[in-house]
């Protein structure tokens, strides 16, 4: 099924859309009741699975403040394969500059509050997450077509604040180890930057190994240069 999806997705995707994969592995340790520390690594691909997009890793901690309220904080080191950038002359055809793709790091900090409520076997949760991401400046290669030479180009350092709001539904199906879930998440700065729609299932083995398989549609904001993304996610969590 995975192979079928991977084969068909590029064809059905919108011409400006892209497809990729999200693979994650996480270790979770329960310090005491309600208090957990986690360490997660994640790999993303793009360009119809052909190009590595990002590697991320970092710890997080969560605490159940109330039975229905969880607080969490975390840090992630993001290692991004930044897209190439091409600019054109005023005629719109002749090249001006080409900055090839390059690998760069970012540091991301986040804090979140998640409130949840269970209606029979359906759990509704709302997570509000503030995240701050800092990109240090760095020098990258740039080809200046006017001067016909490679030159150093400074990608300036900058920080960015994003508010992420996620509404999620989870179903607990009796006598079934597959728990489906669906969510919608909005990334907002001063405007709506991205919307994520997720549909997936959780599966666990002996309450130690947890697997997650999901489809995520990432709708870029109207002012974004990024393509819309179809992504298949595979996650594994080992709980101590």
């Amino acid at each position: 099924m995975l192979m079928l999806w991977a084969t068909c997705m590029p064809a059905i995707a919108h011409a400006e859309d892209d497809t990729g994969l999200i693979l994650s592995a996480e270790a979770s340790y329960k310090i005491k009741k309600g208090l957990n520390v986690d360490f997660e690594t994640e790999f993303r691909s793009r360009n119809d699975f052909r190009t590595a997009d990002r590697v991320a890793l970092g710890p997080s901690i969560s605490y159940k403040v109330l039975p229905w309220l969880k607080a969490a904080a975390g840090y992630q080191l993001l290692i991004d394969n930044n897209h190439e950038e091409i600019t054109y002359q005023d005629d719109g055809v002749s090249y001006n500059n080409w900055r090839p793709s390059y690998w760069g790091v970012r540091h991301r900090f986040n804090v979140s509050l998640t409130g949840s409520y269970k209606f029979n076997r359906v759990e509704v949760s709302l997570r509000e997450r503030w995240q701050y991401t800092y990109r240090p400046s760095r020098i990258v290669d740039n080809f200046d077509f006017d001067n016909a030479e490679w030159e150093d180009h400074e990608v300036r350092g900058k920080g960015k604040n994003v508010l992420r709001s996620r509404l999620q539904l989870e179903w607990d199906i009796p006598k079934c180890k597959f728990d489906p879930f669906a969510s919608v998440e909005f990334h907002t700065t001063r405007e709506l930057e991205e919307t994520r729609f997720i549909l997936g299932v959780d599966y666990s083995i002996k309450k130690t190994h947890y697997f997650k398989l999901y489809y995520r549609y990432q709708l870029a904001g109207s002012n974004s240069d990024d393509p819309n993304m179809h992504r298949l996610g595979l996650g594994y969590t080992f709980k101590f």
Partner: protein
Amino acid sequence: MRKNIILYALLATMLGTTLVSCQSDDTDMDEIIAMYQVEPAAVELDFSELTELPDVPVTDEADSAYNDYVENSPWNKVISIAFDGEEATISGSVPGVSIQRNGAHLTIMNMSGPVKFIISGKTTNGSLKFYGDKRFQVLLNGAEISNPNGAAINNQGSKTFYVVLADGTVNRLQDGETYTMVDEEDQKAALFSEGQIVFSGHGELSVIAVGRGGIRSDDYIRIRPGVKLYVNSSALDGLRANDGITVDGGVVNIETTGDGAKGVRSGGLMTVNGGRVIALCAGNTRITTEDNVTDTASCAGLYCDSLLIVKAGTLMFKATGDGGKGINSKHNVNIQGGSLTAVATGTSKVKKPKGIKIDGNFDISGGYCYSYSRRSDPLEVAGTLQVATGYKTYDRTPKVITIAY
């Protein structure tokens, strides 16, 4: 067991997908960049012998060029001047010609008509200065003249000044870093003339300019076959004429290093009928400020204020400084034959370097034209570009244009 299979299958899928995600999604720019990073055609000074067609003087007195031919004047009045250090020995006298001496600095008043001055010997502190509205000839016969305070040869007369290079001789002129000026007199180059200069003969002349230009006429300049000129100017233009330049033949090599300096600059019609002219300009854009108004002037291998016509011969120009142009024409350019190569490799900090920049029209109907610009368009034509049919090659890439018939 089944659970382990699921686990391993997932892990294998993750690992496999990660491994295949190693392809770049960048645009393939290799070929495009190679097209932009192409190296220019070689443009270097060339002192080798040039096989030229016979130089046939005009014999029709009605022809406007008749007086440009030294053969068409009688040269029975001769004065010889031999320099030797700080002294000069003068042989012969001509009624109507007076010579004032100050060491090896000679001031000659010619009221006699065509007079031939045969110059030889070496001085490191001497000069020749001519007055009089009569055409005259200077036959350089192994002369080496340096003037630390101005031009080596300065003609204030407005009639034709024939500079004849005696066959097989090597001659040298050099100016000084500072010029001692005389009121209401120009002195614009190491070899300067108010009137037209016509070069002929089969000798060599090197002009070293450190204070002002190399060779300059406030009228026009004609260069005939057989002449070998080398100009090295670290200050102003190499070869410049206010009213036009005609190259019938000869080998002309020019180097300039001054900011804003031009290798060849013609204020009037420039016609190339043969020969080989090569100019290398290394200066950057000259920036001057006067009355709070800033002006910029870029270098150019060839700078034309008027029409340029190339019928035959070889022209090669290279500018390597900031904003330098191979050819900068303020008028039309007409290539009917010959070979024209223009290269600009400089930076574009102040002005844009261009292989060929033409403010007027560019018409080509024969010959060969190559233009290269490392940091901008190789050919910029403000008017119309007319490439007559029948060409063998007409290639245009981002940095090079080649047209060949």
